[in-house]
């Protein structure tokens, strides 16, 4: 009886894929299609992550593959969390992330607000503003190293022209108090357009009639800005901050090219410290522990942030 019913069902649905590919159910075919992706993902994402977690509990060194591997328990984590160099690196990262986000959000939103007015030639200016974002970080890093050059660099020349400080004193990359700002300036130059684009999408999503209603309701431009523009664009702004935050937390390429972490270790952000521990000291186990700590920190912060973002979006 049951078989008969199943047969009837099969006959009633002649278009089923199962009938055309003999011996395979729709579900099996679906798995077949996503299997390559899943295999790749497992091989290059999930497995290394699990392997790194394992290594973080050992004294494994990648340059001595034949040395005996011992389980050292939590001592790698202990060293990472008490290492003053690592705390220094975390502070450098926090400084970098905080200021780049602040500057990029403020400037990016302001640019978006101005571009949104649709003045003459706004499309041309939008394209022009977007150019830095399209360059490769390696190119940008090299580029700005020359711009920052005290003797021949345009940056030093321009600053000297405006302030009258001799160019030899404008050691953007060599001075301990200027170098952190040098990398912040370059990152801001490069990524403000990105924040601007997202903010622009936010501003364009606000329908005109809301502003018209506010205008008839006698809301001043100032009040419209704070009670309509900002709250309605806020989810977009927060999204831009999230993207930039995650990106800059793992900043490596541009800083390596600009300062290499120097002078001293003042611009040594976490990822550079990590790279040094892993591929210069070859302390693979300890570096893995550091990587896991970073991962948990970023993941945790991002999660809290996304919860806040969802709350804002649901208002």
């Amino acid at each position, binding site marked *: 009886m049951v078989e008969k019913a199943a047969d009837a069902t099969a006959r009633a649905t002649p278009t089923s894929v199962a009938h055309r590919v003999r011996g395979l159910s729709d579900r099996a075919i679906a798995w077949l299609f996503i299997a390559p992706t899943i295999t790749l993902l497992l091989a290059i994402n999930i497995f290394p992550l699990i392997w790194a977690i394992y290594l973080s509990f050992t004294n494994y060194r990648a340059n001595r593959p034949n040395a005996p591997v011992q389980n050292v328990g939590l001592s790698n984590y202990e060293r990472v969390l008490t290492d003053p160099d690592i705390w220094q690196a975390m502070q450098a990262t926090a400084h970098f992330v905080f200021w780049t986000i602040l500057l990029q959000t403020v400037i990016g939103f302001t640019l978006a607000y101005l571009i949104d007015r649709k003045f003459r030639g706004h499309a041309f200016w939008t394209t022009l503003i977007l150019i830095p974002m399209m360059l490769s970080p390696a190119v940008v890093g090299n580029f700005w190293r020359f711009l920052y050059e005290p003797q021949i660099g345009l940056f030093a020349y321009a600053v000297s022209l405006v302030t009258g400080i001799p160019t030899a004193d404008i050691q953007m990359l060599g001075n301990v108090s200027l170098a952190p700002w040098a990398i912040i300036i370059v990152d801001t130059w490069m990524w403000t357009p990105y924040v601007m684009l997202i903010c622009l999408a936010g501003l364009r999503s606000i*329908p005109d*009639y*809301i502003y*018209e*209603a*506010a*205008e*008839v*309701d*006698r*809301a*001043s431009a100032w*009040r419209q800005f704070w*009670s*309509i523009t900002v*709250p*309605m664009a806020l989810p977009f702004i927060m999204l831009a901050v999230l993207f930039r935050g995650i990106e800059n937390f793992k900043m490596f390429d541009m800083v390596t090219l600009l300062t290499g972490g120097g002078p001293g270790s003042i611009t040594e952000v976490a990822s550079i410290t990590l790279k040094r521990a892993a591929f210069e000291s070859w302390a693979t186990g300890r570096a893995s522990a550091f990587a896991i700590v970073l991962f948990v920190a970023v993941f945790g912060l991002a999660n809290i942030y996304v919860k806040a973002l969802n709350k804002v979006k649901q*208002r």
Partner: protein
Amino acid sequence: MADVVLKNLSKRFGDTQALADLDLSIRDGEFVVLLGPTGAGKTTTLRLIAGLERPDGGRIEIGGRNVAGEAPADRDVAFVFQQYSLYPHMTVYDNLAFPLRAPVRKLANDEVDRRVREIARMVRIDHKLENRSTRLSGGEMQRVAIGRALVRRPAIYLMDEPLSSLDAKLRAELRLELKRIQKELGSTLLYVTHDQVEAMTMADRIGIVAEGRLLQVGTPREIYGDPASLHVAARLGQPHINLLPTDLLPGANPPPGTKTIGARTEHLDIVLDQNANAQIDWIEHLGDQNHLHIRVRDHKLVTLADPYFAIRPGDRISLTLRDPLYFDASGQRLG
């Protein structure tokens, strides 16, 4: 509240003449409805009065003062948009309070609170004051939008098809409520719609608009019973007015120059008669009434009949005109 007078108002968008020399005066406390098809210039008229568009020519007087050059905020008008133009990140309460919190008003907080609650009761949304405005049904959103206009006491309320996006039942309900509230407050109201039922039921006076021109202004009775032109006659009445040649049916007494006779249900007498001039083609049963589709020679007519009127498709009837409307070749009314 104040009189609002429009004189020679004109507005062009690119190649389209949205409004051409529109004259209209709205008396204090009057409910005026502009009725016309999409693109007739109704919304443009409202936006010009509100100051959301600048006129190309003409005067807009509110309380005797020409406001054509003033910003929307200075004109003392309230606007209800066709879309639910609520501030989405605010509660219902904050939406209603928004216009009252304009710094120029300098209203005390408890006065704002009193007015918000009073209006919320009036538009029957007082049970949802703390809800986010995005968590409301369409009908509730539009009540809030109407309420947000009503919390103010402007010179004139401007409403742009506020009920058009609601379902039929809700529309009928809000129609009644809006009329009740307008009477209660004695407010001056200019209301735009393409729905003849809204126009007929709410308006003190109706203005028929087409292609940027105001064709006729009058009470609903005048517009319906005494239309100035074919176009106006065709705007009102359900089913649509039947337009017939002069010699088709008996009973007419057309004045010289008549080109077309307009006949609505009340202009047609039906008598069952085997030797008659007409035949029933089809009957649509609407429950409370029937639509009769009638053929007279090669012309088709639609009229209403009582559901108890014993008649079937194929029956022959004798159809006679009784005081129909006469129009000349240019569509102007005669007689």
